[in-house]
């Protein structure tokens, strides 16, 4: 019933969007160019084959076609269409046809077979009015924050964890149907966002290579489990996410203040123990819960270095708990998060370091994590042969758990349109921790990107 209502409402909203495109484009400057001149079409083809050391098998063989069309009505308005044909020939990362229960009906991928899917990546109309009001309506990515590798404020769009956090965020971020409005009040840029698309992180099945098992408690011996269907928000307006971002640039400082009223992109796993046919049974009832996230970012150049950072405060985040008195094995706490980074560029060299802290403010006992956690990332890269060849190494490390991963890569421009990419992902640490659980997934991959 909820979905039917949502479908109708969504169709109405889509009709409004297309009507606004037509009206706006006719109301603005008269077209001076031909259809061909206004249309900008491009295509990127990428191929990547990854070999897993532990299993001595291919972890994935991936072919992605990304056609993109941008139709510029005039200097102020454009319609953007980006789609993706994705084939993973091993059918290993997302085995079979995923049910995508965490994805709204309007954002689901279309699976042609187990290996190939079609996805509308982005489809939006952008217009800039004469009073500097800018509106973007449609399926899009909205990116907040200053950090690389790990995310704090980049939470507007959910993510597909098909390859944990190894994929480029551009590819793993899930675009959402949303409205973004931007305007200026004196020297302050205001961004308002409304996201009626109830799509959340795509997490992996229990048997998938990148299933994050450390997030789930192991069942005690002799205890059965009943896994209930996830309770997901379905109301079009009431369950929308809304957000605001204020930005300014003053005295060399780039500053932003961000607020998002949203559903956590991971469900809370409520556990209850009961007797079922005399067998102790744990019933797991996953449910998406609301939260408020308040944050801010800064960056400033000092000499040859750029300092940047993020501060985030999350209200009432839910944690799976080890506290025997916790209600349904879940406890709540506010969470303070911060990230401080420095980028140093010298000639062809780039060095970048980031320090991430998370502090659970309440005295709770979260499952498989500490109340105060610190992660660090370090990136070094060098451009060679006039940017023909780039060597890079990224290191992500958990200070608490002494686990992490290292990603060395080489990127070579064969010609104007073709890049060759050689990359490896090397996890280390104990099996029960976030990164250490994937030591058996260490791999080396080779691929290319070709674009016209």
């Amino acid at each position, binding site marked *: 019933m909820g979905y039917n209502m949502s479908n109708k409402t969504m169709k109405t909203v889509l009709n409004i969007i297309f009507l606004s495109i037509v009206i706006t484009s006719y109301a603005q400057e008269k077209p001076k160019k031909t259809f061909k001149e206004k249309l900008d079409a491009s295509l*990127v083809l990428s191929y990547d084959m990854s070999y897993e050391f532990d299993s001595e098998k291919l972890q994935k063989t991936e072919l992605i076609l990304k056609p993109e069309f941008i139709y510029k009505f005039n200097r102020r308005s454009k319609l953007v269409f980006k789609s993706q044909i994705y084939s993973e020939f091993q059918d290993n990362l997302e085995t079979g046809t995923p049910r995508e229960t965490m994805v709204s009906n309007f954002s689901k991928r279309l699976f042609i077979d187990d290996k190939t899917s079609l996805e509308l990546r982005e489809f939006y109309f952008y217009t800039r009015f004469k009073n500097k009001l800018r509106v973007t309506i449609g399926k899009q990515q909205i*990116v907040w924050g*200053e950090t690389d590798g790990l995310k704090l404020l980049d939470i507007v769009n959910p993510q597909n964890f098909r390859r944990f956090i190894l994929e480029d965020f551009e590819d793993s*971020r899930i675009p959402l149907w949303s409205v973004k409005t931007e305007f200026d009040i004196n020297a302050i840029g205001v961004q308002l966002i409304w996201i009626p698309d109830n799509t959340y992180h795509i997490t992996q099945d229990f048997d998938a290579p990148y299933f994050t098992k450390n997030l789930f408690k192991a069942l005690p011996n002799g205890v059965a489990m009943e896994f209930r269907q996830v309770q997901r928000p379905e109301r079009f307006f009431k369950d929308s996410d809304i957000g605001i971002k204020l930005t300014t640039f003053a005295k060399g400082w780039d500053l932003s203040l961000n607020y998002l009223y949203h559903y956590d992109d991971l469900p809370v796993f409520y556990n209850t123990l009961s007797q079922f046919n005399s067998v102790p049974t744990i019933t797991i009832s996953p449910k998406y819960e609301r939260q408020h996230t308040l944050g801010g970012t800064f960056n400033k*150049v000092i000499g040859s270095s750029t300092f940047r950072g993020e501060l985030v405060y999350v209200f009432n985040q839910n944690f799976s708990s080890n506290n025997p008195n916790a209600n349904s094995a879940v406890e709540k706490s506010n969470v303070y998060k911060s990230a401080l980074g420095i980028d140093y560029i010298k000639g062809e060299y780039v060095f970048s370091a980031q320090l991430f802290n998370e502090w659970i403010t309440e005295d709770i006992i979260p499952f498989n994590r500490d109340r105060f956690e610190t992660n660090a990332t370090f990136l070094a890269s060098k*451009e060679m042969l*006039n940017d023909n060849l780039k060597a890079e190494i990224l290191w992500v490390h958990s200070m608490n758990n002494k686990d992490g991963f290292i990603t060395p890569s080489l990127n070579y421009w064969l010609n104007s349109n073709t*890049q060759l990419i050689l990359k490896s992902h090397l996890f280390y640490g104990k099996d029960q921790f976030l990164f250490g659980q994937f030591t058996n997934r260490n791999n080396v991959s080779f691929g290319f990107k070709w*674009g016209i």
Partner: protein
Amino acid sequence: MKTLILILATFFIMNPLSSYGQNLMDGQQIAENTHAKNEGVSVKRNLIMELKDKRGKMRVRKTIALRKYFGKEKRLVIFYETPSSVKGTGFLTFDYPEASKDDDQWLYLPALRKTRRISAANRGDYFLGTDLTYEDIKLETKISKDDYNYKTLKIEKIDDNDCYLIQATPKNDAIAKELGYSKAHFWVDAKLWIMRKSESWDIAGNHLKTVKISDIKIVQEIWTYHRIDVINHKTKHETVFKFENIDYKTVLSDDYFTEEALVDGL
């Protein structure tokens, strides 16, 4: 006869080339003149960069470059159009008139969907794989007013045009290190005040680069160059910058020169 002498004397005084060998125009003045040249309030143009390595392998980058003066402050933005895999990359710089104030620079990387601040202190670094530095790109063939001590050497013809040849030496070691040059020679057109050629030497004194600026013609009443050829003698790498569809007349909205515009694109 007196009148004729007076006319000739006036001609020699007025003509900037009158002082052949004797009182050549001061190098600092020549540098200032390159900045005084009319270049319009704003300009929009296609900038095509052809990068060729020593083996002859060529890569082509097509961009749209916009520049606008906000009073004395100059803002420049470059949007990458091709190849597809770098499409959407944008570079924005605020060039402040105060020599003591560092410029502000941003680079938008579509693969990250994030805008990165770039230190302007690294002005001697090469601009996105080309053979010009960030400083060269910012100056747009003009000659720095603040970084060098100049000595006017002579007048030479470049492409049949009289040019002042001035020798530039960085004012101190720190500037030399920042720019990456220990010495430079600039050939500046004595009528148009446009640089037509330059040679530069690296910190160790080795011949580093030759820059040639050509295809100079009037566009919408403004003398405009259409091609820059750069050869890096050290790496044998070459870059050709070609400027097309140059338009000084279309009024460019201030909104193009913002971080938001880097993200939204053209």
